[in-house]
């Protein structure tokens, strides 16, 4: 599903964010990517979503070489991904429902079908009845759930999340991770970047540890 081979990422004027990183995530796996902040977790996420291109090495997502992808193909790769980002990136000029609808609208789905799916996604993350609210009126945990609903609304086979529980207290964090678990149970491949090792202790899974850009195992 995801395959990194000898990946190096160097930002201009900075040290290497990733140094010769190789790993693979098989379909149906639930994998944690851990490490201190600055270890390179976000860079891995950005490479998978084709927000960045690797300086060296290859990144394969759905058997596509992300580094070689043309600008025209990148949008279509992103439509196959579910993404939860560190900063929520919700749009506060529209309702919760419209935020969740966004990926389906972009994909050009019929509005009625899209609406049905958006409601189902909100249902799954426990936000039924909040469709018309503005996301700014929601708590941090609820906003994170909206992000999660938006990430899974187009039923991706792969879900990646960058620090999805970073700003949440333990209760909310457990809820969110429980939802990830539920998606994993129905066959979605999940990659979660987190620095919160206590969380991993509660929900065990395979772990990839990054230390200053090097994969420690």
């Amino acid at each position, binding site marked *: 599903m995801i395959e990194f081979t000898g990946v190096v990422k160097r930002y201009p004027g900075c040290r290497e964010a990733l140094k010769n990183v190789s790993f693979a995530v098989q379909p149906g796996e639930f994998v944690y990517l851990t490490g201190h902040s600055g270890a390179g977790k976000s860079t891995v996420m950005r490479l998978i979503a084709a927000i960045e291109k690797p300086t060296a090495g290859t990144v394969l997502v759905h058997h596509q070489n992300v580094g070689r992808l043309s600008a025209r193909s990148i949008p279509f790769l992103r439509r196959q991904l579910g993404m939860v980002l560190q900063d929520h990136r919700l749009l506060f000029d529209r309702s919760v429902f419209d935020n969740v609808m966004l*990926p389906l609208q972009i994909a050009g789905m019929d509005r009625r079908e899209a609406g049905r799916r958006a409601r189902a996604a909100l249902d799954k993350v426990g936000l039924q009845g909040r469709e018309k609210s503005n996301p700014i009126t929601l708590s941090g945990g609820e906003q994170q759930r909206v992000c999660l609903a938006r990430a899974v609304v187009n039923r991706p086979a792969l879900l990646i999340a960058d620090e999805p529980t970073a700003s949440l207290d333990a209760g909310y964090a457990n809820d969110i991770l429980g939802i990830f678990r539920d998606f994993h149970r129905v066959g979605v491949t999940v990659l979660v970047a987190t620095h919160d090792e206590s969380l991993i202790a509660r929900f065990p899974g395979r772990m990839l540890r990054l230390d200053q850009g090097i994969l420690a195992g």
Partner: protein
Amino acid sequence: MRAWLHAHFDAIAQTRRQFWRRPVAAFLSAVVIGVGLLFPVGGYIVAANLKVLAVGAGTDPQISVFLAPDASAAERAEIERRLRLEPGVRNFRFIGKDAALKELQTRTGSDDLMSGLASNPLPDTYLITPREASLVAQARLADSVRNWPRVVEVDVDAVWSDRLRMLAKTGDIVVLGLGVVLGLAMLAISFNTIRLQVLTRTEEIAVLRLFGATPSYVRRPFLYFGALQGVAAALFAWVVAGGSLWWIEPRLAALLDAYGLSSRLAGLLPADGLALLGFSALVGMLGAWLALGEH
């Protein structure tokens, strides 16, 4: 095809939302562009009316050919033969010296014009209607007739209508120039309004891109907005120009009547109006396209 239509409906819906987010700003930008459009539109209407005047006032340009006072009937016959052969002449009319005198007497209302004169001093005259109305063609015809035997004087009496016609032609050029300059101004205004929108919506655009929006998906609503703004501006200009004509026509009627001219003013024809709408929409869209730059 369905997906394509759907994408466009979606873009139009987004454009509508964008408009209602800042209706006053959108309306005022359209008004600014509309005022800019009014200048070439007004110029176009003035030029069109000048042309109507030129046609109405000029009727047919005429060339008067005066013969020597002692020209004989045989010499007149020769002139008439040449006039018939001359390709530049549409038709001609002969006014004999006696008829001319009689007309002068009736026009001035005095019978004793001849009292101090031994003989009729008026020449025999031919009035020629040239085939071509252009000043050059008339001058060429006049020059050739001037060299014929027994022709003393040739007079081209179309100067006023020609001046008017030239004025109208100059007007066309001025309108075209105004159109180009103000088209550029419209482009700049459209560019700025859309640029501002793009800047205030960078976050939204980034999120759209992140969730798989293609560049054309991002661009489309802005392009529609630019076009819509252009159409609104053109409608504004059309309505204001039409309203001004309606207001000015009765006030100008007395003046035009005094010159024996039609007091009906030429306005924008529906075809002109539609062309204006199309042009304005296109310029608005182009402005938006330029403003989007790398997005």
